[in-house]
């Protein structure tokens, strides 16, 4: 019998409902796998007691015939989500010891649907990073290695723990969040599927805020179908998040017919970057051929302001972060610095924040402070917001012209080595070049694994859809998944 932890949500759901396995057995398999995978550093706060309690409750629901899709399914939860009574630190030293008295809307919806939490997952501090190297818990290791090479690779970031945990089968799926590519880039780096929903589809309440106009939570799973199942449980209107949309949540899974005949897929010429590896270019061409094979019409399109997305992002996101992270002042929760005699409240703030935040977070808070400061607000922040409006309009024009979805590479490279020293912070930012436009425009985007590079590392394609049409978008992703036949798994070395 295959190990239970390698199952997809859809497979496990069937076995659970048929009574072939119990949630307790499934959960124990995941907890064991997680325990054996400490080297990966993906799970940072294991919650076996909670998991087993939830699993028992799920088994009772299954026995009673009251079993929603996620009933009894073990999930990993990114450390950015507040989980009641369980450490929720956003991988930051400043939230050391913080145990929320409340449950985020997403996790409470997942738990109401019967999901089981195996633990909290590692990430970049406050979701700021693309390699999971800014975490107070230390780096996450990608379960994938290059052929005949033991170099430790990044799982990407910021949802690196989620990516690594799902790829290594420590849980059946995980929650992620995506502000500039933090679900899609790590998903691509570990060969799994990751969806960033339309802004407003999933409640942000109880998720530690980074950049509120860009943040969106989404599923990271082993298949497109699992993405559809999990999004259904995460999505929906929440009165506690004023930006959450009051729209009905469709049955996403029912929309996965794999039939995309007659749809029009756009290929944006601006995503063909100078110096892009040939393998990425080749994968993109293969994706195009797969969609043609599925009966879609492929058209070349232009999104003229693409080039300005990253610079606009690196104004808007730090600006919002500097405001959101002002709350970490050593008064209400988390770390407070030891004060010297005579220190007043200003010294308390300054020392607390200097000790609690890591370098990248400090850098972004200060950049944000600068671009919002008197005399620079118009030149930086307002200009970036104007450019953002143009980026959004590029997409609107493409959709207006009849494009149903847009195909691009997910990342400009495969997973890279951990521990590379970049003397220029901008070099790390370039990881998000293909994903960040989607956040600025508030659109849904999905990364699907589509192949391996010549060193045996997974590569992903990205599809971008119309607002609120995650179902149609996942259906296009399904057409890719069906044709790519990506079944590779990292060979277990940990």
């Amino acid at each position, binding site marked *: 019998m295959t190990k239970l932890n390698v199952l997809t949500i859809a497979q496990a759901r069937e076995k659970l409902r048929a009574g072939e396995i119990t949630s307790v057995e499934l959960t124990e398999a995941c907890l064991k796998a997680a325990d054996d995978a400490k080297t990966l550093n993906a799970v940072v706060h294991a919650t076996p007691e909670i998991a087993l309690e939830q699993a028992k409750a799920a088994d009772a629901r299954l026995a009673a015939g009251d079993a929603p899709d996620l009933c009894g399914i073990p999930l990993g939860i990114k450390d950015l989500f507040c989980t009641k009574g369980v450490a929720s630190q956003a991988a930051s030293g400043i939230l050391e010891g913080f145990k929320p008295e409340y449950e985020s809307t997403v996790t409470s919806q997942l738990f109401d649907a019967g999901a089981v939490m195996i633990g909290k997952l590692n990430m970049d501090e406050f979701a700021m990073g693309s390699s999971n190297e800014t975490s107070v818990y230390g780096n996450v290791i990608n379960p994938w290695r290059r052929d005949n090479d033991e170099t430790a690779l990044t799982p990407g970031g910021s949802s690196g723990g989620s990516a690594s945990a799902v790829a290594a089968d420590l849980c059946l799926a995980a929650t992620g969040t995506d502000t500039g590519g933090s679900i899609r880039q790590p998903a691509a780096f570990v060969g799994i599927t990751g969806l960033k929903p339309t802004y*407003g589809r999933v409640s942000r309440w109880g998720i530690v805020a980074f950049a509120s106009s860009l943040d969106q939570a989404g599923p990271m799973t082993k298949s497109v179908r699992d993405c559809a199942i999990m999004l259904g449980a995460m999505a929906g209107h929440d009165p506690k998040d004023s930006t959450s949309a009051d729209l009905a949540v469709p049955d996403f899974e029912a929309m996965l017919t794999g039939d995309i005949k007659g749809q029009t897929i756009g290929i944006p010429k601006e995503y063909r970057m100078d110096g892009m590896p040939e393998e990425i270019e080749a994968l993109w061409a293969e994706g195009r051929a797969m969609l043609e094979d599925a009966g879609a019409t492929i058209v070349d399109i232009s999104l003229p302001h693409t080039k300005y997305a990253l610079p606009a992002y690196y104004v808007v996101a730090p600006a919002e972060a500097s405001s959101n992270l002002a709350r970490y002042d050593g008064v209400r929760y988390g770390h407070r610095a030891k004060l010297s005699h005579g220190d007043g409240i200003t010294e308390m703030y300054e020392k607390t924040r200097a000790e609690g935040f890591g370098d990248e977070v400090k850098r972004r808070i200060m950049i944000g402070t600068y671009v919002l400061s008197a005399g620079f607000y118009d030149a930086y922040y307002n200009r970036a917001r104007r450019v953002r409006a143009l980026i959004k309009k590029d997409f609107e024009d493409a959709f207006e012209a009849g494009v149903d979805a847009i195909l691009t590479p997910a990342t400009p490279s495969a997973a890279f080595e951990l521990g590379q020293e970049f003397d220029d912070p901008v070099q790390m930012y370039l990881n998000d070049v293909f994903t960040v436009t989607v956040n600025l425009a508030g659109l849904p985007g999905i990364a699907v694994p589509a192949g391996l590079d010549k060193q045996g590392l997974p590569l992903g394609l990205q599809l971008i859809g119309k607002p609120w049409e995650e179902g149609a978008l996942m259906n296009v992703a399904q057409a890719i998944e069906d044709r790519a036949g990506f079944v590779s798994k990292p060979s277990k070395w940990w």
Partner: protein
Amino acid sequence: MSIDTETARRVAKLARIKVEDADLPALAQDFNRILGFVEQLNEVDVEGVEPMTSVTPMRLKRRVDEVTDGGQQDKVLSNAPDAREGFFAVPKVVE
């Protein structure tokens, strides 16, 4: 435009993050690299373009103005580094 050490010091102060003098030059250099990257935005013609305020056009929901939550002083204070007699405690603010 270039950020000097003095500007870096001022920004750190505004952000309420203590930065040692010795670290200011490196910080200023980081700012210059990031802001240098952002300078590209000046190439874009934004004449007549309204700054984006909301991601999706939506009217904020309204609700009756009434108390819907509260009475949880213990929970509110449970994570405080220093809480006394039902209050958050901080160093003396006013002389």
